[in-house]
């Protein structure tokens, strides 16, 4: 047990991130919207237009006309609202309670950013309107780009990629374009075995082969293994730093030198950028290309799985290859414009239908402005402090495979609980749901057995951390007392209990119409 005398005072105030009071009424399923349908019922209404009611037959030639309407549902507005409100009550969220899902940075999403995304001057702008009529948006995007470059130590950025994986593929195409411009054809990209799955999938789409390098016993890239695969066929390496074990790659300078030595480029997966804001910058570590996940580090909400935003920033030598068109500063011309669109001379081309997930970008800028340069550093400090506190607090109850100072997240393991009692990481995760917390990320990174990856983020209070730690501690104790079978029965009180995933894949029902 930790030394009680050195623990922070957690007796004052209830844990704000513990969601156990949530009323989860009843054990019934919510019918689908289609089951509420009643012929002739409707919710829609449109404005009065005064436009002649030309018959459809005169508007659309017969060969193009459908013979029956698309069956959607026929429901009243009242039933529509009731249905989706009830669905929302069957959903855990950051607003409800702590969400320590490792590698996902589920921090609190400030409400002011919602207001920003709804401003008529931003939300009501057509993306094809000329630059002369969208100066505000161009100014906003340029300011965000410059801010992100300062935070990451890079020269310029594209804001087009819609998510982290889109950023990765953009980065790999930049890597390819750069090598081709050097007259060099290369085939391999190196990825550590602790990497996110998007990395190798993006490498394939970028036309490269994946070379995996193992981690050493400290949880970092094995330098000897890396050196053994480096040659002039290596286009680059993709690294997450801190890596997915929450550990800082201390040899980063040596890695950068070794990769650059063979003419390769360094790609930074920015999934874990929250840990290093204002402390160390990818550009200063030697990275050439980086993507950021604004929906993680900069608190734009994750929306149940998106939208995200995955801007890609590059060092000076890669700027001519950036996707275009991109917003740039210009002189004041005869209509008073200060910004315009420009496509870099050797651009890899367009990677988004328009200009990126722009309203997400606006949210991110607002978040950065509220926090400021000083606040960003504070975010990294407290995120790292919270994770280390959890690591220290739980190192008796759980295995800590790499028990040394971590960054913004810590990977625990249920290996001993599994060996002794047959209780798995999954069981711990499911049981925790009943304690009012979302589960940690489980079974990732792949190199840790029974991994429980916890990322508290900076927005959870000490009271919440203590409540989370106590819940995990008591679950570990319970595992020994009750055994595997009893633990596998949980959760009991959630809207549904354990779900038959095998049946979902075997007897696939991807739509309501596939029900038999």
């Amino acid at each position, binding site marked *: 047990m930790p030394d009680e005398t050195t623990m922070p005072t957690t007796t004052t105030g209830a844990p704000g991130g513990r969601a156990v009071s949530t009323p989860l009424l009843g054990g019934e399923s919510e019918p689908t919207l289609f089951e509420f349908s009643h012929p002739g019922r409707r919710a829609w209404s449109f404005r009065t237009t005064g436009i002649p009611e030309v018959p459809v037959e005169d508007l659309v030639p017969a060969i193009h006309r459908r013979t029956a309407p698309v069956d*959607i549902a026929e429901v009243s507005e009242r039933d529509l609202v009731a249905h989706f409100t009830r669905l929302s009550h069957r959903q855990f969220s950051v607003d409800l309670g702590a969400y320590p899902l490792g590698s996902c940075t589920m921090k609190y999403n400030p409400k002011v950013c919602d207001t920003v995304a709804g401003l008529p001057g931003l939300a*009501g702008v057509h993306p094809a309107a000329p630059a002369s009529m969208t100066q505000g948006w161009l100014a906003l995007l340029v300011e965000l780009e410059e801010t992100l470059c300062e*935070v990451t130590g890079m020269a310029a950025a594209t804001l087009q990629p819609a998510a982290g994986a889109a950023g990765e593929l953009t980065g790999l195409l930049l890597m390819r374009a750069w090598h081709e411009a050097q007259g060099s054809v290369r085939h391999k990209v190196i990825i550590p075995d602790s990497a996110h799955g998007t990395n190798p999938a993006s490498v394939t789409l970028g036309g490269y082969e994946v070379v995996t390098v193992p981690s050493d016993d400290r949880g970092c890239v094995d330098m000897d293994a890396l050196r053994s695969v480096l040659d002039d066929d290596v286009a680059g390496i993709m690294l997450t730093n801190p890596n997915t074990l929450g550990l800082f790659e201390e040899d980063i300078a040596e890695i950068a030198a070794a990769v650059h030595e063979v003419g390769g480029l360094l790609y930074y997966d920015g999934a874990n950028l929250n840990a290093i804001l204002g402390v160390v910058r990818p550009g200063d570590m030697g990275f050439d290309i980086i993507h950021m996940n604004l929906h993680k580090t900069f608190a734009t909400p994750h929306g149940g799985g998106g939208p995200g935003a995955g801007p890609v920033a590059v060092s000076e030598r890669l700027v001519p290859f950036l996707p275009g068109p991109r917003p740039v500063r210009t002189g004041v011309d005869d209509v008073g414009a200060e910004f315009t669109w420009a496509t870099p001379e050797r651009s890899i081309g367009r990677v988004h239908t*328009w200009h990126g997930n722009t309203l997400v970008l606006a949210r991110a800028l607002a978040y950065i402005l509220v926090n400021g340069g000083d606040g960003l550093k504070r975010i990294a400090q407290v995120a790292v402090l919270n994770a280390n506190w959890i690591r220290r607090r739980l190192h008796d109850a759980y295995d800590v495979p790499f028990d040394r100072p971590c960054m913004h997240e810590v990977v625990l393991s249920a290996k001993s609980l599994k060996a002794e009692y047959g209780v798995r990481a999954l069981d711990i995760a499911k049981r925790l749901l009943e304690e009012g917390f*979302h589960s940690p990320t489980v079974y990732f990174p792949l190199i840790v057995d029974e991994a429980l990856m916890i990322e508290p983020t900076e927005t959870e209070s000490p009271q919440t951390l203590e409540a989370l730690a106590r819940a995990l501690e008591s679950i570990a104790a319970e595992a020994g007392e009750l055994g595997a079978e009893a633990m596998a029965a949980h959760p009991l009180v959630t809207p549904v209990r354990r779900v038959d995933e095998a049946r979902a894949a075997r007897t696939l029902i991807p739509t309501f*119409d596939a029900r038999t």
Partner: protein
Amino acid sequence: MGTYIPHTDDELAGMLAFLGLSSMDELFAVVPEAVKLQHDLELADGVGEPDVLAQMESFGGRNRARNDRLVCFAGGGAYDHEIPSVTQALAGRSEFVTSYTPYQPEVAQGVLQAVFEFQTMVARIAGLPVSNASLYDGGSSAVEGVNLGVAATGRQTVWVSEGIHPHWRQMLATFAVGTGHRIVTVPLVDGVTAWPDGPDGGDESPGVVLVGYPNYLGCLEDLSTVRTLCDRTGALMVVGADPLAAGLLRSAGNWGADVMVGEGQVFGTSLGFGGPYLGLFACSSAHLRRLPGRLVGETVDVEDRVAYVTTLRAREQDIRREKATSNVCTNQTLMAVTAAVQLGWLGTSGLVEVATRCARATRYARDAVLAIDGVTPWADAPVLREFAVRLPRPADQVIERMADAGFLAGISLEGAVDGGGHGLLIAATERRTADQIDAYAAALAKAVA
């Protein structure tokens, strides 16, 4: 000044002490000094939320082309449709907004069921049995559709109609550099695609054929020609369809498409300067296991209650890694939920109604615009809610003049189609009134004079 960190100074000190540390800097002892930032970030200090709101409002104030100030006649894949209060209220619920990907289905039934309903609606609109949980936008769906088609046929030549959105075509070209696909653009003639004749359509037989419905110029093409072409060449038929037009038009599946891709912004998502939007993707059952992105399926829990879960996960990047069907992880779930709400609000009759109203407004606008001296139709093919005209002067110039009269006049066809500089693409949605259209036509007559 603003902060979302709850800790007091005392609490921070206590936590550091618990770790045996005396300063925040010690937390970063593992970071080598050589790479550590030796100065503060050159960014302004934080300020209060009201200050930031004022700054963001001032950005908005500098945007002239906002639909509360200029009446919007621009389309081109982004439309000014009605977004009712009910959609804003439900899609804005924080349970949907602030949750992550549904990795723990026991506490994510809300998002999972909403996406299941979304998939059902998209599949019905597409006239195809399977839809995924969304992609980034219309262009990303087109790219994934082409990737699926190449994987299915094993042939990397892709025929793309010039009537596909020019930005989608640019994206296809960008990503083809990595995949090695050969993108061949097939030109439009009088607004419809002039597919090559011949037993296998000419030089190299295509693995995929991609066509728009309606196409970028708003024109309706006879897709039976495309089906015949695909039967002849063995290519997969991918249709880039406007899902709102499905209120009146035959579905992609009804025309024989193997895959439908589309832009779902039309269902409740604001113009937002182009994002976040919603990539739609539906396909026939034959291609289920090549589906990109996430898929929600129905199953039961241990008490035999209906439950939803992400399924066929073995296709995805976090399991299959370099052999995954796509690299997509985060998608546009919130926009998918938004579309499900909006489609629920429209319902069966409302989808017909909105498409009909668009078609009527477009007919009314087209008649008014073509009555102007010197303005001629770009093509004679039938249209639904968008049409292209040829102007007597450059479209860019006309668009600037029209802004002074209070209109976003449309989109210049410069760069979109051959010789497009004098072409203007005009959209009229259900939000346009007869008075607005009359005023628009009067202003346009002056602007082109």
